[in-house]
């Protein structure tokens, strides 16, 4: 019963480690090509391509992180690596696996590669800090904590208000970009093409259109008068015609 279970777990572990190695290999490749580019093409390289490379690397780091935190990943900290023997001689197998970086599994490299704790100096310093933290009075610590929180929240407020200002300014700018309006275009064109809104001030038009008929009337009536028919009406008509005439003589 126990055996198949174990083998299953082992399989999962193996496959996930396989995946991890694949990811790390990818990252190593892109790092290598980036370094290569930096060394060989540094004269012609542009800043955007450098940024592209950084973006690629950070993307790969992200996927690696996601893989480690993912559900399929067994808790790696529960597994330990136990070195059974050190060998001071060259080991061609390990040299091939590490592409020549580690030539032998000896006492020189093992403390670095199999390290699970920080370096002794680092450990010492962190210990110092921990003891210092313990000696601080609880009251005092609380006070400092609140002060720090206050400062942080203040800074956060300032940053947020600046952000709001920025955004509103951006919005304003985008609103100002409304530099033309279709309605205005339409009314301008209607005015220039068809005279919409421009005809109102002139009141001479009815007079000028009225004028020709009256003069015509006068002429025909004059002709009639010349023919000697109903002279009295002709006279009055002429009079009314002359008063209607817009251009009166002084």
């Amino acid at each position, binding site marked *: 019963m126990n055996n198949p279970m174990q083998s299953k777990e082992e399989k999962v572990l193996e496959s996930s480690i396989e995946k991890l190695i694949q990811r790390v290999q990818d990252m190593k490749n892109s790092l290598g090509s980036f370094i290569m580019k930096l060394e060989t093409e540094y004269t012609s390289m542009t800043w955007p391509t450098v940024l592209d490379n950084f973006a690629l690397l950070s993307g790969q780091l992200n996927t690696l992180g996601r893989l480690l935190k993912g559900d399929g990943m067994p808790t790696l900290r529960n597994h330990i690596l136990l070195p059974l023997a050190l060998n001071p001689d060259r080991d061609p197998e390990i040299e091939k696996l590490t592409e020549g970086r580690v030539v032998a599994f000896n006492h020189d490299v093992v403390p670095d590669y199999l390290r699970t704790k920080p370096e002794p100096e680092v450990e010492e310093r962190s210990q110092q800090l921990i003891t210092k933290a313990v000696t601080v009075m609880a009251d005092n610590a609380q006070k400092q904590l609140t002060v720090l929180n206050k400062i942080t929240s203040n800074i956060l407020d300032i940053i947020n208000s600046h952000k709001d200002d920025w955004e509103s300014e951006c919005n304003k700018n985008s609103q100002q970009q409304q530099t*033309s309006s279709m309605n205005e275009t339409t009314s301008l064109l209607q005015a220039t093409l068809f005279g919409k809104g421009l005809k*109102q001030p002139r009141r001479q038009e009815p007079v000028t259109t009225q004028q020709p008929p009256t003069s015509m009337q006068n002429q025909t009536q004059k002709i009639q008068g010349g023919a000697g028919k109903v002279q009295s009406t002709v006279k009055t008509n002429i009079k009314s015609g002359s008063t209607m005439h817009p251009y009166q003589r002084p």
Partner: protein
Amino acid sequence: MALNFMDVFYRAYLGEPPNDALSKSMANSVVTQAIQGGIAPYQEYLLQGSIVDTSRDVLLHRLQGLCDNAEGMPQKFQDHEMVFMMRGNTPQQIISFRVRHSLHQRQNWVLRYTGQTEIGDKNRQTLVRTCCDVATSDNVVQFLNEMGFRLDNEFIAKGFFFHKGRMRVTVSKIYKILQHDNLDNLEQLTMSHLVELSVVAPVGQEQIGEDMKAFAEQLKPLVQLDKIDHRRLQTF
């Protein structure tokens, strides 16, 4: 004789006719049309838009950078335009002429006739209308009146003039004349300037539309120069 003259005219004013057969036949038809009509047929390619007064200076700066007369101040103009009409027997039969005269150079009078505006299809980038501009003397108004034309409306256009190659750009503010005989008593019509991009060219030069479209693109998003259907505007 006449053909020769028109040929010379064509070469002198419109450049060497293009060599391929199509253009040649087109050029010939242009010439025959010119002989029959008595005037060389020109077309105006037109894009229109507007800009609000507050952003006008930004547009002027951009135009100054884009256009040929870049150095110095942009060229100003102030024109008085009068639209004369004569109605025929039916309401549709309206003939109209536009008289424009400069208030800066009082001797400059121009009589302009424009045909029906064609909107065309999507392939055509601009409005196209036939047009005829004639420089006249200052008694053109009297002449038109005596022919039976009547003043329909008038306005004052004050603004700026630019050119790039044969493209012409005007940025002008339209004013209503409050008193017929007082050209200083004005009232602005809108809070915007009218922007027009136009080229007057012989018939059949559709390539201009592309150039104009490219130029109009450079004024975006400040001004949206479009081909605006005049027939749709007429319904008000």
